């Protein structure tokens, strides 16, 4: 009999400006050391499916933490909190970068950490993943799942909370990037995904993009009509392979 186990619970982390907030943390139990992943939630918020995705990564060998980017809104159901954040125009990029930095530090501080940390984000979280991977040191791999607004075609859409289009920071990307996109998605649309890929290629950045037919936005999300099981299963397998490849502990450290 093979024994598998994990621990999944809410933890406190220090985020942007040292604010203490909540995060959902799922990790394999026993064995290790384990690579770490920060999961950046989608715009609807820190909801059931995000926590399910966190557990899915832990089940596959990654100590995974999903910080609640809307914790400063106070208590409430994820949809009510998400609605308030939408009405307020979202959360500031600077704040997200600070909160993700706090989550990365949390992962590296654990005694069973192998020292490698990856990022994965869905929807606006995909955009945040791209942004953080271009902004913070210490990111060993990044996965952008259908992040819209990496390219900003209308400069009027830039504002105080989102002053820079992440595509303009691509030169600073310092880790391999995996991108997963549905070809029926309108944000990002096929043209925007192609242009993002062209930029990565032009700058010689290590990346792999996969585009799925018959899938639109949020096609991993089993809680939504957008769910596409075949494409999602294939996408997840690519995520696990990518993270296992780039977040493995260095051979020298393993031998020590």
């Amino acid at each position, binding site marked *: 009999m093979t024994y598998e186990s994990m621990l999944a619970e809410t933890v406190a982390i220090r985020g942007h400006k040292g604010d203490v907030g909540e995060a959902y943390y799922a990790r394999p139990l026993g064995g290790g050391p384990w690579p770490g992943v920060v999961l950046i939630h*989608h*715009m609807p918020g820190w909801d059931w499916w995000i926590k399910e995705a966190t557990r899915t990564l832990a089940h596959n060998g990654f100590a995974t933490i999903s910080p609640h980017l809307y914790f400063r809104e106070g208590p409430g159901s994820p949809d*009510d909190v998400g*609605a*308030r954040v*939408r009405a307020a125009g979202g959360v500031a990029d600077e704040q997200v970068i600070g909160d993700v930095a706090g989550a990365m530090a949390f992962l590296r501080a654990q005694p069973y950490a192998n020292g490698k940390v990856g990022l994965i984000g869905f929807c606006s979280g995909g955009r945040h993943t791209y942004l953080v991977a271009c902004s913070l040191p210490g990111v060993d791999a990044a996965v952008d799942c259908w992040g819209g607004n990496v390219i900003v075609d209308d400069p009027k859409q830039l504002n105080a909370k989102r002053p820079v289009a992440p595509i303009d920071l691509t030169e600073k990307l310092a880790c391999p990037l995996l991108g997963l996109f549905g070809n029926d998605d309108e944000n990002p649309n096929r043209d925007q995904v192609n242009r993002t890929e062209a930029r990565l290629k032009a700058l010689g950045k290590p990346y792999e993009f996969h585009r799925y037919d018959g899938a639109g*936005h949020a096609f991993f999300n089993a809680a939504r*009509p957008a769910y596409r099981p075949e494409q999602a299963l294939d996408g997840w397998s690519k995520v696990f392979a990518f993270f296992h490849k780039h977040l493995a502990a260095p051979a020298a450290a393993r031998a020590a």
Partner: protein
Amino acid sequence: MCSYIVEKAKLFGSAKGPNGWMRIDTANVYYDHPFHAPLDHALGIDFINEADGGRERVAVELSAESARELVEKILAALANGEIEHGKAAHHAAAPVAAE
């Protein structure tokens, strides 16, 4: 939801939510991925009291077709209701003969 595009309507009125009746001063209206309705996109309306902090909302999610149907019915109800209450006001103004 994948857009921050929100139309805000300033309102005068009340809404009934899980905590009973509340005064509302704003409707946040948006067309995006819904939370509950089994649709890819829905017209969402959040009735809130923004002056009070907007923490409580009465929310609906409708298909685009339903939202357009609702707009028609709102206008029809207003038009018919104003005529009807106009008639009622006319009757009330008529003098009642003393017994």
